[in-house]
């Protein structure tokens, strides 16, 4: 473990990858749509963390500006997502993705 974190950047890389992987796994295995949305947010947060770290590492502000872009866009995206969720809840009375299986193959 000592060697792994000898370079501070590696620590951020490791953490961000871990968070990202948790997000991906969550999307793949959870059935509740709200939790899936949260996992998407987790993925994006991992990206934000890593971008900030790289930005400091390169001494380049662009990376942090990009973080603001991502945050703004993620907010817009999740708004749409929640609207879709509400629409589905009205039609099926459920927030589980198992209630949606009309389209297959």
């Amino acid at each position, binding site marked *: 473990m000592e060697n792994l974190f000898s370079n501070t*950047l590696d620590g951020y*890389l490791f953490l*961000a990858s871990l968070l*990202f992987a948790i*997000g*991906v796994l969550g*999307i793949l295995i959870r059935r509740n*749509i709200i939790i*899936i949305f949260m996992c*998407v947010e987790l*993925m*994006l947060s*991992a*990206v934000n963390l*890593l*971008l900030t*770290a*790289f930005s400091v*590492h*390169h001494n*380049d502000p*662009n*990376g942090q*500006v*990009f973080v603001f*872009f*991502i945050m703004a*866009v993620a907010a*817009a*995206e999740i708004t*749409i*997502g929640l*609207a*879709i*969720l509400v*629409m*589905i809840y009205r*039609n*099926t009375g459920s927030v589980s*993705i198992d209630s*949606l*299986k*009309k*389209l*297959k*193959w």
Partner: protein
Amino acid sequence: MKTIILLSVLGIVAMMADIFKYRAVLWYLVLAGIGAAVGLELLEWNQNMPYYGMLLMDNYAVAFSCIILGLLFVWFLVSRDSYTGQEFNDADHYALILFSSVGALLMVSFVDLSLMFLGIEILSIPLYILAGSRKKDLSSNESSLKYFLMGSFTTGILLFGITLVYGATGTFHIERIASAIGNSTMPVYFYTGIALLVVGFGFKVSAVPFHFWTPDVYQGAPTFITAYMSTIVKTAGFAGFYRLFSTSFSNARMPELMEGTTWSILVIVLIVLTIVIGNLIAAYQTNAKRMLAYSGVAQAGYMLMAVLVSQVEDNTKSSLMLYMASYGLATLAAFTVLYYVQKSKGSDEFEAFTSLGKTNPLLAAVLTISMLSLAGIPPTAGFFAKFYLFTSVLKANPSLLWLVGVAIFGSLVSVYYYFKLIISMYGSDEKSTAEVPTNMAYQFILVAIVLIILFLGIQPGLITNLANL
């Protein structure tokens, strides 16, 4: 740039139509606006105008913008019929479509990865809404949610890839990335970043094995939204993919893989899987809309071939453009016919097309020619699109002959299912003798599209010479 501003303003104008009560003229306004946008775009030809290191209107960007705007124009022409009814609010839909195509224009002209990201998002977010615009219809809901989930998932992957590339090179500018790579050795996570970008774009352009959302989304969404997704969105996706990879990563070689670039192996795997699996599954479909969705998946495999050889063969740009134009036109025409059939018969299974050749010979002929173009039979544009593409690949690297062989096997399979639709149209069935009602004006537009397809099949130099940039 002016085009992008104009299109955004047009979107806002469309949004206001309900408030200021000019919905009746909105359609004409939008068409005129897109026409003006094409004009503005053409003014940028050969200007190579950079915009603050974020956008670069080089000829590639201008040509692809024109293709996108042209397809958009055609889309507005043919989709009119579905908005004259009361099912959808045309003002809202038009605004969303226009905003979405602003994203498409960003994706063909970016030079900074942040603009690429914004382009993708601006392109996708309105589509999540549009896919679900049949609020009471469960399959439309499902389509919308699936599209949303896949879209945001893909965004995450793309962003992670962008971040890793940024970490390794210290810049978001695609040309500076290329010069930062130079000949120096890159950290391992840089290659992970490229791989993630390939996966992300693979999702966006629905390459196998990242395609599984496509048929569901395409089938569930309203027909003209599907048409938009499978033409303009796909064009923008490929244009962005090509622009990024041909500019930034053409010399990204891992030290132990000196033969080709790292990502070309990944792309080759994608191509083979996409062509083989996409075509084979498409051959099993009995629903015309789903068949078209899978055909879109399979066609993506051919377009990926242009991306693959972009690093060595400059001419692939024009192959990609011709392919996009011919695919886009044929698909729009096919979806339009599908829309009419679905509207009158209430079904988009193959059986619904039975005896269309008798009741509506014109619609049947349009669909036949667009299927022929998709299958790549001369003298349609599709033949030359495939021909140029295969020529480019063979010229770039003759040892990729086997890949062309796979592609040809794929198009042989594709002939089977495209012809299945044609056969069902000309098969006779005594029951369905009712004519599918259409409007003279739309028939005229469809004929015009078909004539363009045939014309490009006889005179392909029109587009390919355009792109000798």
